[in-house]
């Protein structure tokens, strides 16, 4: 198996603060990997570096053999990395369908002039976008809400719409930032099944940040653990569960008398 994503010695410094340093990750095609760690460990910062929101100050990010560290976010997305956000960032005043269409944007070809003059390429392009976007809404059970404004959806559906939107950008690698945050156990369970399903359906590689240990331990094949901006462990869920460093990071040091 070839490495789809290879991260070498990745680090970022904000002024005098080294938020993340020496992170090495490797993800093979088709894997589902978890990234966990206590609050403030640098998980989302790592995501932001992988997706181009922050330019790393050290290290390399290789995706599909190409270096993508420091590229603009939209270029990273077009290379095939797509993400969701920890605090939902839907386009609130757009309809559910339009939210997905926006993400589908990068895959369409018709240009500004063809849209202004309503050339045939505009119509064929827009019809294709509509069909593809509707297909994603169907998978996520949102087709009944296609004309509803995104801000009017209930919370759980907004989370699902975020994943649908991320998929519409046509990624090879999907980064999910706490997809189950704020969900009840039933919703979390449904979400797990959905993630497993889309992974098979779209042949995706997934990197997942999550605090819900049941979800992480339940579906991830391997887990990386961050603490204070550094990787402290990686391995299978069973290995992570019994790793003393991980326990220490989460529960604190044992007091010896």
């Amino acid at each position, binding site marked *: 198996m070839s490495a789809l994503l290879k991260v070498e010695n990745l680090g970022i410094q904000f002024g005098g603060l080294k938020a993340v340093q020496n992170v090495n990750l490797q993800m093979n095609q088709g894997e589902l990997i978890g990234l966990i760690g206590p609050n403030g460990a640098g998980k989302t910062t790592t995501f932001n570096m992988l*997706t181009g*929101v922050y330019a790393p100050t050290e290290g390399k990010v290789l995706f599909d053999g190409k270096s993508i560290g420091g590229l*603009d*976010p*939209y270029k990273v*997305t*077009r290379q095939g990395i*797509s*993400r969701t*956000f920890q605090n939902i*960032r*839907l*386009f*609130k*005043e*757009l*309809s559910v*369908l*339009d939210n997905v*269409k*926006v*993400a*589908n*944007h*990068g895959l*369409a070809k*018709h240009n*500004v002039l063809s*849209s*202004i*003059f*309503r050339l045939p390429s*505009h*119509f064929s*392009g*827009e*019809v294709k*976008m*509509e069909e593809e976007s509707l297909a994603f809404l169907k998978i996520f059970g949102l087709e009944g809400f*296609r*004309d*509803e*404004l995104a801000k009017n959806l209930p919370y759980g559906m907004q989370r699902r719409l975020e994943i649908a*939107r*991320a998929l519409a*950008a046509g990624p090879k690698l999907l980064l999910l930032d706490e997809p189950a945050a704020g969900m009840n156990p039933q919703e979390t369970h449904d979400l797990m099944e959905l993630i497993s399903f889309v992974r098979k359906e779209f042949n995706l590689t997934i990197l997942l940040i999550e605090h819900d240990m049941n979800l992480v331990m339940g579906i991830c094949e391997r887990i990386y653990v961050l603490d204070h901006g550094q990787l402290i462990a990686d391995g299978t869920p069973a290995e992570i569960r019994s790793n003393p460093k991980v326990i220490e990071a989460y529960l604190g040091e044992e007091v010896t008398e």
Partner: protein
Amino acid sequence: MKKSKVFWSYLALALVIYAVVQFLISGNMVSYASQNMLITMCINIMLAVSLHVVIGITGQFSIGHAGFLAVGAYISAICTMKLGMPFVTAILIGAVVAALAGLLVGIPSLRLKGDYLAIATLGFAEIIRIVFLNIDYVGGAAGMQVTHQSTWTYAFFGVFITILVISNFTKSRHGRACIAVREDEIAADAMGINTTYYKVIAFAIGSFFAGVAGAIYAHNFYIIQPTAFGFLKSFDILIFVVLGGLGSLSGSVIAAIFLTAISTYLQGFPETRMIIYSLVLILVMLYRPKGLMGTKEITDLFKFGKKGGTRI
């Protein structure tokens, strides 16, 4: 196709409005003052709609729109008065140069956000005005004599093309990309949208039609002076867009018509004119804080049971 049917019925409606007014004008049934008000209305609609694409759709708070109006006015006036070109060519050249000015201003300043962008665009507009003020070739502070060539026909088709192009732009993947930038720039970027490109495109389209408005404006009043393009003019245009409802094209059209009519009517009461005008603005903002139309379009009101969503 249902969609093209809608388009043809709008086109027919527009042509009927045009023909009726044109018939009344050629039959000398419209006073000179009313004709003038109609043309001013058209100019203001063009300005409102062209700023709507920048502020309402793309969410970039630019308050220097009068600068592009000035570029369109002066460049087209130079074309007709100094170079002897026909009016239509002058309108096109004025618009293209205004769009280029938009690119020139937009590329550096659209990196800024919110208040900072507002200040930068205001500054650029003042620079444009001062440049014209100091060029003797265009008359400096005394202004430039321009012959009267703007007619209802030019003004009406100017508005028609402005609305058609901007509504076509909005109802496409490009318009959605611009709205996505307005809603959440970081998320738009993460979804693969080149945010800088779309901000600059929206700005250039807005400047282009401000240039068209400028050309028609210049050939309507016999004289153009730099003082007419100060920041108060920019605020006038901004008021149309905000009062109509940010994000609503028909809202900015309605606001432009409404405010031009009020302003023209109040010219008979010069002492109280600005007081009443300001009171109207305050009342609308108190009772319709999201503007007359909010983010809705007037066509939405006729679609029962359907809401939201841009259609092809």
